[in-house]
């Protein structure tokens, strides 16, 4: 591959620059700052584009570094030859790679070519840009090189085959990462972590190995405690049975005490009863007899009390004496009073209603006056008012009728005048036509005469006929409507005159003076008075009718007669009060009479009872002259006490007998209180047993909790054991994988080195050839390893060429690069770009380097930049 020419539009400081390149050596000797390095970078940019787009450092970011100083199109084109073809590549660069353009044309046909893509450098040289810089581009002070995968691949001529050599470093890196991820030594390695987990699991599994035994022991303890619990329960049951028996014996003891108490109680009751009987020397009276006597005494007491109550006072005796009229005659009954009260109520209500509806005195006077005023009337004022209203409306319509009459006459007059005008015109036209006919007769001919005469005659006839019609219509036959109106006006005037006369007479009869303007008001006033008269008459009639219908007069007289009969002088205004007073007097009389009767009855009973009681007391040895009530009370009290004691004695007897029937008296008598155990003591023992059971239950509960916890731990332990097995297996698997991966990495590297070793030899041969050409010395002490690293033997050891002086180092590095280029490209040789690489060489070596350049340029196109003519 060789470059033929290039055109730089703008690239760094270079612009509008055209350069041509020949085969072999092309030397560009320019002063510092001309742009030699920029030109070299331009050639690289044409092949690879710009690098370091994301770098901030200006030296690393080529887009920023070579952006045109003066602006304009950033880029250019380059013509080159490859594979026996010539091409022109054009690239422009924008702000970002996305704005870059690339175009490749066949330089001979100028047609677009698809032979290479944007990755032109890679496709031409099988090198990436980094490898390009480290092989066929030799910069200032950059002679030593470091081989890359691309270089290795190219040297081995493998790049076109499988590409796997290019993958070695990434494969090696991937294996390294996987090995590290598994590593047992790195903390991040899974084997390391697994080892830690397994140690932890082993510790936990070892700690839990006795769990099953612990659980068994716990279960045994639970069983033992359950057994103890059973024993304790049995013991408690026994104690409870003893306690039940003791309680029964205690109950029997209690019953024996009860028996003794009943016997004592019976004896005491007998003694009390005998003492009570001694209070009755003549025998114990019958209870019923005593009760009867007490009842009689009560009755006597009651009669005495009644006598006190019904005895009349002096005032009452006087009052009773004053009511002799009621005593002599038949007294009015309550029904009589009800009747007369009802009668009085009706009378009062009707009288009150009558007072409301009857005419007042002023109304009576007004009724008399109005009756006098209208006594002579033949026509009612309302009819006259209607006639007057008719007269007023008739007079009002009279004006309009007169106006209508005038209007009709005026219209007829106008029509007549118009008709007259038409007649005159027609007659005049006829006369003119006739005159013209006569004239034409003399001028033209008879025909003209006849025509004019006929036409004139016709006009005149029409005019005359019209005049006749007008006369007929307006003179002989005036309009019927007008005629009618005139008749109505005459009639209306007559009606008004007659009405005025009638009204004037009527008003005069009522003392009023007729005027047309006030007639209406006067008639209204008379009508109102007429209505007042009618209303007052009706009211008066209604009151009178009410009075008659309700018999007001009869009612009053009946009540008064009743009052007079029982000694009361009636007062019409106080009828009700008088009735009430009479009723009260009758009631008082009855009351006093009843009291007298009651007193007499009670007095009789009192004397009878007193005699009977005295007789009873005397029969049982009591003094009948004492206070009979007090004596009877003592007797009753003693008898009651005797009965109570007798009852108690009987009950005690029955109770004792019943107890004897229901209990074994002999057993009760044989009881030995000392031999019966105390239920309380037994209860205490039972409580102790219960407490013990409680404790045992607690122990069982606690043991069960412990057992459950142990089971939980056992589950965890089993899980840990299982996990330990799994982790151990996993560890073994991962260890195996780790070992195999480690071995894989070693063997892959071994393969790679073995492979590289095979192609290092051509590089070494070329290196030796170039190095001996430059130095004229043997190159035996130089060696190249499998990684294409150059070493030099010094003092019996292979050393890095960095130990050499700068000049020798650059020279050796340059020779190695040239050797690499020869080895890498065996067929079509690429151009070599050298950017003043010999700056470190002394004059002797610089001279030798010129020879080297010439030698190289035999096989390569060499583009050599320098700023020194000595190195030119």
């Amino acid at each position, binding site marked *: 591959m060789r470059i033929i020419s290039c055109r730089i539009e703008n690239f760094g400081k270079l612009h509008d620059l055209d350069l041509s390149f020949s085969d072999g050596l092309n030397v560009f000797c320019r002063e510092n700052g001309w742009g030699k390095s920029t030109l070299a970078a331009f050639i690289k940019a044409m092949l690879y584009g710009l690098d370091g787009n994301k770098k901030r450092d200006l030296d690393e970011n080529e887009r920023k570094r070579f952006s045109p100083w003066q602006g304009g199109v950033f880029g250019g084109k380059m013509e080159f030859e490859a594979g026996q073809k010539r091409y022109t590549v054009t690239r422009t660069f924008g702000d970002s790679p996305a704005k870059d353009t690339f175009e490749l044309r066949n330089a001979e046909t100028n047609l677009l070519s698809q032979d290479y893509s944007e990755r032109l450098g890679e496709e031409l040289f099988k090198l990436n840009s980094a490898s390009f810089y480290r092989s066929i581009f030799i910069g200032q002070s950059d002679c030593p090189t470091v081989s890359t995968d691309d270089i290795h691949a190219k040297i081995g001529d493998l790049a076109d085959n*499988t590409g796997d050599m290019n*993958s070695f470093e990434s494969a090696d890196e991937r294996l390294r990462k996987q090995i590290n991820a598994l590593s047992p030594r790195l903390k991040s390695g899974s084997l390391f972590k697994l080892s830690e987990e397994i140690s932890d699991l082993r510790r936990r599994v070892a700690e839990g190995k006795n769990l099953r035994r612990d*659980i068994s022991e716990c279960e045994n303890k639970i*069983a033992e405690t359950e057994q103890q619990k059973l024993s304790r329960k049995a013991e408690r049951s026994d104690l409870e049975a003893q306690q039940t028996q003791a309680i029964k014996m205690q109950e029997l003891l209690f019953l024996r005490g009860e028996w003794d108490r009943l016997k004592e109680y019976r004896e005491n009751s007998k003694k009390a009863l005998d003492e009570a009987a001694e209070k009755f020397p003549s025998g114990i009276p019958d209870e019923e007899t005593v009760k009867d006597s007490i009842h009689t005494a009560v009755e006597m007491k009651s009669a005495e009390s009644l006598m006190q109550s019904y005895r009349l006072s002096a005032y009452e005796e006087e009052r009773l004496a004053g009511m002799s009229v009621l005593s002599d005659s038949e007294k009015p009954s309550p029904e009589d009073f009800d009747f007369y009260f009802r009668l009085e109520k009706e009378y009062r209500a009707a009288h009150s209603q009558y007072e409301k509806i009857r005419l007042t005195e002023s109304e009576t006077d007004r009724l008399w006056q109005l009756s006098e005023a209208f006594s002579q009337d033949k026509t009612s004022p309302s009819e006259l008012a209607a006639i007057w209203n008719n007269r007023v409306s008739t007079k009002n319509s009279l004006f309009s009728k007169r106006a209508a009459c005038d209007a009709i006459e005026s219209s007829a007059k106008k029509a007549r005048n118009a008709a007259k005008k038409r007649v005159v015109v027609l007659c005049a036209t006829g006369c003119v036509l006739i005159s013209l006919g006569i004239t034409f007769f003399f001028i033209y001919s008879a025909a003209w005469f006849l025509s004019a005469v006929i036409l004139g005659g016709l006009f005149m006839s029409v005019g005359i006929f019209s005049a006749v019609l007008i006369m007929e219509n307006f003179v002989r036959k005036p309009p019927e409507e007008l005629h009618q109106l005139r008749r109505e006006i005459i009639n209306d005037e007559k009606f008004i005159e007659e009405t005025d006369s009638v009204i004037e007479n009527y008003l005069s009869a009522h003392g009023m003076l007729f005027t047309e303007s006030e007639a209406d008001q006067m008639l209204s006033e008379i009508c109102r008075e007429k209505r007042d008269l009618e209303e007052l008459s009706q009211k008066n009639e209604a009151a009178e009718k009410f009075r008659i219908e309700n018999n007001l007069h009869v009612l009053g007289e009946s009540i008064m007669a009743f009052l007079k009969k029982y000694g009361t002088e009636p007062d019409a205004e106080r009828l009700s009060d008088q009735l009430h007073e009479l009723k009260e007097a009758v009631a008082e009389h009855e009351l006093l009479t009843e009291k007298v009767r009651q007193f007499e009855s009670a007095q009789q009973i009192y004397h009878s009872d007193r005699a009977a009681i005295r007789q009873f007391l005397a029969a049982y040895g009591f003094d009948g002259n004492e206070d009979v009530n007090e004596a009877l009370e003592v007797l009753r009290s003693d008898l009651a006490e005797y009965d109570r004691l007798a009852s108690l004695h009987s009950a005690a007897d029955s109770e004792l007998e019943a107890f004897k029937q229901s209990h074994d008296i002999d057993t009760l008598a044989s009881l030995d209180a000392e031999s019966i155990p105390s239920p309380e003591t037994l209860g205490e023992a039972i409580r102790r047993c219960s407490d013990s059971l409680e404790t045992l239950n607690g122990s069982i509960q606690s043991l069960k909790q412990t057992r459950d916890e142990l089971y939980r731990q056992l*589950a965890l332990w089993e899980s840990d*054991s299982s996990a330990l097995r799994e982790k151990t297996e996993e560890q073994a698997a991962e260890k195996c994988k780790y070992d195999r991966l480690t*071995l894989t990495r070693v063997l892959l590297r071994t393969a790679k080195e073995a492979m590289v070793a095979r192609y290092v030899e051509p590089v070494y041969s070329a290196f030796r050839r170039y190095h001996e050409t430059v130095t004229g010395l043997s190159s035996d002490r130089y060696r190249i390893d499998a990684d294409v690293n150059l070493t030099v033997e010094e003092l019996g050891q292979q050393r890095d060429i960095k130990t050499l002086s700068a000049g020798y180092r650059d020279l050796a590095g340059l020779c190695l690069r040239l050797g690499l280029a020869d080895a890498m490209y065996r067929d079509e040789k690429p151009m070599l770009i050298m950017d003043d690489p010999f700056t470190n060489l002394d004059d002797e070596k610089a001279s030798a380097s010129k020879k080297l350049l010439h030698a190289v340029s035999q096989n390569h196109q060499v583009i050599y930049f320098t700023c020194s003519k000595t190195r030119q």
Partner: protein
Amino acid sequence: MKIIHCADIHLDSAMTSHSDPESARKRRGEMLRTFERMVSYAAREGVSAILIAGDLFDAPNTRELTRNTVLHCIASNPAIAFFYLKGNHDDNNFLNGLDELGKKPCNLMLFGRNWGCYECGGVAIYGAELHGGDTAFYDGLQPDAEKINIVMLHGQISENPAGVEHGIDLKQLRGRNIDYLALGHIHVPGSGRLDDRGTYCYPGCLEGRGFDECGERGFMLLDIDEESRMITRTFVPFAGRKIVSVSADITGCMTTQEMIITAAEALSDAECDASSIVRLVLTGELDAECEKDIAYLTAAFAEKYDYFETADETRLTVDMDDYLLDQSLKGEFIRTVFGDGTLSDEDKAVIVRYGLRALAGEEAD
């Protein structure tokens, strides 16, 4: 007369070998419910007795729930006689204090270290915990020849039990008028002839607990005609879940998708459903350069079953002829690996796969 013969129920088994703790707890519950279902089945079918030939429980530490549930099952079915012979896994934990506390159901029959016998209808049921297994032990067993005799034992039958753990000497049991030897200890159902008169039978476990207990699991239902003295034996599959191990030969598959298709075919042929516990065993030979993602493949089937796991037992193969003249790094690498005489063939295949995957930009699987 119907009798159920079951054994090796292993209630409260830890179940941790293939399950996380939560799944193990769930599975323990399922096993207990299967026992309850079996008792309900017995009650429904008019079964007179249930023979539990050992290992009712898995470990000495039996949870209270389990003990109470078993006790309730027995006590609430007084019409069924439960004959319980302890196995090597059983302990006294369940029986401790039952008698003393008055909790032992009257229909629970137990056996000790010496031969015990119960009459159940016209059937005599014998049993003894195995210990030593010398002649004297077997001589203690003297069933009446006129009766139908069932003998319960828990152990491994053998013609020569010396050195066999929990060994049962079949020779000693022959000619002892045994009609049915109800055995426990072996988890796979199996049976055989004991002598001219009787047969022996292992019902297997009631529920499988791991992939070493795949296949149908349940109990034996004996239908005994007391007149003819005929015993008809039927295996009743009863496990709540089926444990299935399915092999899929994925030889030649180059991608995970191809492997999934092959595995799906193998799973569709297997008798498993959504409630099954399934292990897919991948077998065959795979090219070292194949693309294989076991986690992805497992996820493709995981939701179809109650539990699903994949065991990768495939072998990697590398055809050296393909790389003999390969001048690439890959060729050089493979030649280097296979030239290393210290490596086993399996290591070589795996290392080649790791290397090739690394060169292809993939992680090692």
